[in-house]
């Protein structure tokens, strides 16, 4: 077994911890749900509890399977759907194969890769997959030592001050970020500060923090930094720049697209003078990470990092259409404030993983060209009404393929750099064979062979112990863990 850059270790640790979560009694799950509901009642929008409630959680340390204390990120568990472990194992094998042959997959089988992103990336490989999709992996390889260098430098006090004030205000109910000065907040600081040094002309925008935090939940600081760089420069260029023109322009684009998707919703918003930036700023700038149930956030990000910003537009359009798309619904929200309130408290059923992903993939075939066409039209309008843009952003890249084409990596850049290799592959193979069907097994072997050409570095006794001992409890631990939790998907679309 090979562990990549410490990520594997992270995933393993998570699995073990999750499996213990999976054993929670029905009673304790029920009590968690209760708190969640009471939270939702006490607070509009983001359902976070009061100080005393938080203290209650921290002492109990009850986290949901995503690490949110007391399921604070809106209805996460109810919305996630379980996948059988065998399917999960197959998917992991397929993703390992893709990661090992990334350039080939991108060049020749991109459609299939897209499909797999739509079906959901296996949680154990999500961080690595995101880094590859975003091009962050290539950036990291081509700029070796860069992050370390930025990390060592002192930041501009102007930015450092603001960043420090924000550290405890990012997913404050996620176990990683709950402790003041804890490792999550420290890494968040490092990543955001490094960005201000990397792009001093942009500095720090508060909406970057949730993006960085989501990445940090899945990868180490250096990787999260490059992921953030890619999102800010390739996926959402200009969003976090002074003046926030790009987000305003995208607001106009969204509104124009809505006219086609739901004329009724469009008319309603227009009638009540609801400027798009009133409702879409947080959605788009944080890539829905603060809006949707967590299972849905992950699935949206899987697709977003593969296909680009059109996914964000689609999600926005789905939500607007669902919330404002019928006369019935509009009757109850006559007025600007009422409409805003409605859009702040989106009906959970429209945000559930299965429903949302289906809508985004099937019901809303909005293409890159549609977005680009509307972009040009709105840009023209902007220039007519408001003059030239003050901030010239680089062109937007629509997803992983475009990014890779724009900056072609060398083979070397794509190679996985294992930091831990466990030599006794026989024992592990047996272990794997016992559980998986033939097809998947062959792929796993293939990827293992491929891996051997990589650079073996060190071996770590701890993970090797775990992976080589085929004793049932340990062998089952990650399996059970991922089955009970983490993974999120529509149940009718297995690979």
């Amino acid at each position, binding site marked *: 077994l090979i562990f990549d850059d410490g990520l594997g270790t992270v995933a393993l640790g998570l699995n073990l911890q999750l499996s213990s979560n999976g054993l929670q009694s029905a009673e304790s799950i029920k009590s968690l749900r209760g708190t969640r509901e009471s939270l939702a009642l*006490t*607070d*509009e*929008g*983001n359902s*976070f*509890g*009061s*100080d005393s409630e*938080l203290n209650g959680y921290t002492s109990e340390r009850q986290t949901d399977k995503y690490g949110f204390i007391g399921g604070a990120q809106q209805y996460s568990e109810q919305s996630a759907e379980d996948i059988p472990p065998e399917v999960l194992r197959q998917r992991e094998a397929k993703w390992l194969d893709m990661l090992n042959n990334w350039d080939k997959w991108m060049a020749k089988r991109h459609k299939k890769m897209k499909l797999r992103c739509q079906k959901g990336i296996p949680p154990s490989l999500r961080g690595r997959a995101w880094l590859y999709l975003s091009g962050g992996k290539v950036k990291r390889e081509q700029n070796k030592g860069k992050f370390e260098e930025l990390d060592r430098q002192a930041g501009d006090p102007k930015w450092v001050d*603001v960043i420090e*004030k*924000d550290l*405890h*205000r*990012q*997913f*404050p*109910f996620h176990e990683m970020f709950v402790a003041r000065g804890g490792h999550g907040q420290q890494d968040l600081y490092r990543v955001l500060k490094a960005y201000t040094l990397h792009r001093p002309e942009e500095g720090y*925008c*508060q*909406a970057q*923090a*949730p993006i960085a935090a989501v990445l940090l939940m899945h990868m180490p600081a250096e990787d999260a930094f490059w992921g953030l760089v890619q999102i800010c420069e390739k996926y959402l260029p200009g969003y*976090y*720049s*002074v*003046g*926030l*023109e790009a*987000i*305003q322009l995208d607001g106009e684009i969204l509104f124009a697209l809505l006219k086609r998707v739901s004329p009724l919703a469009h008319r309603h918003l227009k009638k009540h*003078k609801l*400027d798009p*930036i*009133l*409702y879409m*700023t*947080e959605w788009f*700038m*944080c890539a829905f990470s*603060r809006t949707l149930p967590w299972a849905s956030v992950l699935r949206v990000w899987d697709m977003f990092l593969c296909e680009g910003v059109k996914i964000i537009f689609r999600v926005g359009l789905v939500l607007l259409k669902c919330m404002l798309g019928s006369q019935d619904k509009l009757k109850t929200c006559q007025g*600007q*404030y009422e409409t*805003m*309130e409605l859009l*702040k408290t989106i009906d959970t059923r429209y945000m559930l993983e299965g429903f949302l992903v289906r809508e985004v993939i099937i019901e809303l075939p909005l293409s890159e060209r549609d977005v680009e066409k509307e972009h040009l039209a709105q840009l023209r309008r902007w220039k007519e009404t408001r003059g030239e843009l003050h901030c010239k952003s680089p062109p937007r890249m629509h997803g992983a393929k475009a990014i890779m084409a724009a900056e072609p990596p060398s083979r070397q850049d794509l190679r996985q750099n294992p930091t831990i290799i466990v030599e006794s592959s026989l024992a592990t193979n047996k272990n794997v064979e016992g559980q998986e069907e033939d097809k998947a097994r062959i792929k796993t072997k293939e990827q293992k062979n491929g891996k051997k050409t990589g650079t073996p570095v060190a071996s770590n006794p701890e993970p090797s112990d775990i992976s080589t001992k085929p004793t049932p409890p340990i062998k089952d631990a990650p399996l059970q863990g991922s089955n009970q939790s983490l993974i999120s998907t529509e149940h009718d679309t297995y690979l």
Partner: protein
Amino acid sequence: MAYAYLFKYIIIGDTGVGKSCLLLQFTDKRFQPVHDLTIGVEFGARMITIDGKQIKLQIWDTAGQESFRSITRSYYRGAAGALLVYDITRRDTFNHLTTWLEDARQHSNSNMVIMLIGNKSDLESRREVKKEEGEAFAREHGLIFMETSAKTASNVEEAFINTAKEIYEKIQEGVFDINNEANGIKIGPQHATTNSTLSGSQGGQQAGGGCC
């Protein structure tokens, strides 16, 4: 619920001065030190009574970081009152008041009532801005002034309610054109069904009082 008037407020000021905490203290009567950073806009609403009339306050809470200014501007539209907040323990948040005020004056209607708030008055030992300085600034710019603590709830009610009183007086004086919603004031539903005799009688009053 029936109300005689609805006032729209906006809360502005530098990041981290306690805007969201003030709002939460006013609407929910609780202090929550751990919360998500405001990106874009958040809301709250509460009913208050002035002069025997039910008034609904609809409060828009904004992002404080400078880069969000261009967006915050669009929230000023149609606000009857603004709470301009600084942090008494951070001099820079006080120094930025002028630019906030310029922004507010430029993008709102001219009658908007502005309340200057020096928040975090519970942190006396860390005070960097004297109360007199806040008062002087308010006097100079024609604002109402108060020091509050979102943590202890000191003066929070008063800050929101005094602003409403000022708006209400302006309505009585005929300064506000209440038929123009762009002023941030709405007359309540005149034929609203009410569930208490008290507000029922107010509903009647308000139907007659539409002339001001």
